[in-house]
């Protein structure tokens, strides 16, 4: 079901935190509320809700994939063109370990970055409700709810001292 987004723009942290409290008091569940800021604040600074995440799985998966590619590359190339040098074993473990290690770390880094982007819910092709003043220090309080709750969200934000309130139908 399409949802409606309501964005209130606040001048300072106190009034934004107050708006989140009022919205919770008006019956909006935590997962319908979000806070948009231009810089990082300590977690829970606005009383916002935090979901669980699985980011830590990504580097492990990436490392395993990278290690496997490294093994395939090093063992595969030596077996495909078997050339014994200096009477040493065909599959020379120390040099293989170097390339496999680099492959493992490369996989871990690439998957971590993909994981961060994925867990941040990016890329976001539809911009949604947003105000450029947020990157100038203003705080946005965002409500994503059903259309019949828009009025309640507006009232709560007005009471908290929002400088500007806008809504957009069909987001979510």
């Amino acid at each position, binding site marked *: 079901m399409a949802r409606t987004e309501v964005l209130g723009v606040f001048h300072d942290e106190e009034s934004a935190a107050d708006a989140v409290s009022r919205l919770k008091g008006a019956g909006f569940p935590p997962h319908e509320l*979000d*806070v*948009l*800021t*231009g*810089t*990082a*604040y*300590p*977690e829970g600074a*606005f009383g*916002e809700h*935090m*979901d669980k*995440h699985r*980011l830590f799985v990504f*580097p492990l998966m990436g490392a395993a994939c990278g290690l496997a590619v490294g093994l395939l*590359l*090093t063992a*595969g*190339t*030596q077996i*495909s*063109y078997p050339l014994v*040098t200096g009477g040493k074993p065909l599959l*020379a473990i120390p*040099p*293989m370990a*170097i*390339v496999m*290690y*680099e*492959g493992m*770390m*490369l996989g*871990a*880094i*690439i998957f*971590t*970055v993909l994981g*961060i*982007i994925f*867990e*941040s*819910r*990016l*890329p*976001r*092709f*539809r*911009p*949604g409700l*947003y105000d*450029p003043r*947020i*990157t*100038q*220090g203003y705080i*946005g309080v*965002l409500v994503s709810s059903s259309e019949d709750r828009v009025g309640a969200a507006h009232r709560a934000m007005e009471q908290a001292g929002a400088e500007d309130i806008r809504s957009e139908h069909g987001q979510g």
Partner: protein
Amino acid sequence: MQDRQKLTDRQINDDLLRPVERTPRAFWIVAGLLVLELAGALVVLGLVFYWGLGFLGINRPVMWAVLITNFVFWVGISHAGVMISSILRLTHAEWRRPVTRAAEVLTVFALITAALFPVIHSGRPWRTIYWTLPYDFTRGIWPNVRSPLIWDPSAIFTYLTGAALFIYTIMIPDLAILRDRATGVRRRFYATLCLGWRGTARQWRFQGIAGILISAIILPVFVSVHSIVSWDFAMALVPSWHSTIFAPYFVIGAIHSGVAAVTTLMVILRRFFRLESYITPDHFDALGRLLIPIGLGWFYFFFMDFAIGLYSQETVDIAPNILRLFTPPYNVLFIIFIFSAFIIPVPSWFFRRVRRSPLLMLVTTLLVNVGMWLERFLIIAPGLQYKQPLTYTWGGYTVSIFELIITVSSFCLVALGVLLFSKVFPIIPVWDQKEGQRLQDEIQTGRRKVPAVILKEE
């Protein structure tokens, strides 16, 4: 940290995005000169590829000289970025905020420049693809994974990819700021790059985790890269190179030259982009303190490498050191090297006045890199030039003007890369600076107010 001033978000945006949004005439002049020099270097490279490496004066037995010195030097410089950025992030060092991105960007451009040198040194760059990439399915000939020629590209590729992704991930919120301020094509460009960032609590949470997690992963890579570069030498049977101490010796040397290079860059950026409010004497003080243990650590490894060579009493180990210490021009270069890499800069950093002076830090850190370039050259050239038992391997070597042109060009290439980056993206992390402003405070202790920092949980 004493020099603090409260800045608003709008003021931080205006100050730090000024280099991106306005282009002073000095930018075009500097960029033009750098491009002109690089065009000259392309002509020299064309001649090298046409006539062969002999054109540069490289001949048996000194087959590795200035080009490979440049390779090791720039890999070394590239180490500071991630070292500074990762360690300072992991330890929550507050003074990192204006330093990290410039250091990371220096890593990327130094590494790209470093990677060019083995390719140039091959003499036939187009053939390097045969030796490094497993693509020749038709003939079934594959790269030799037992050769350092394969280890180097794999390590550099991993480090370069990691560093570039690190910069990009941490820069996404700044790209959103640029999107909000730009118009037209530039707005579309930044909007695409920032992936639709809105600054939700969840997005900021993962920004915080990204800094810590990628730092932790990339830190071992940075150690591995210069270890692998050192094995290019240590795996060879050249007596003065065949040493087990080379990996840690090269890594600490890379950190010594790299942190010095970051300090040099910070002084130049501060002056060029008028960032005095953000890069303060406190930052140079902190970098100076960091450089002292690094410099002392490097000297310990240098001395160990040198002393063990003499202690062994082996003629083949002593011969290159005799070249370095007593034979012109290497003995002159050795004196310049030891004075500029250690004797002048390291003791001077013990003085607070030196550490807090951008000009003196510029001079001392430039000296370090002059010395560290010479250190690499003195490892490579005399190591190959000593008189071996068979007379047909005796030979001299003189640095040619063309090698010097290529060396100067490598500095121009890195400078141009950093300059262009700072024209398109903010060279100081804007959102990080704003966060730093929010988390700083002052505490009344007795009759004094002292600066305090609130640590944020990640």
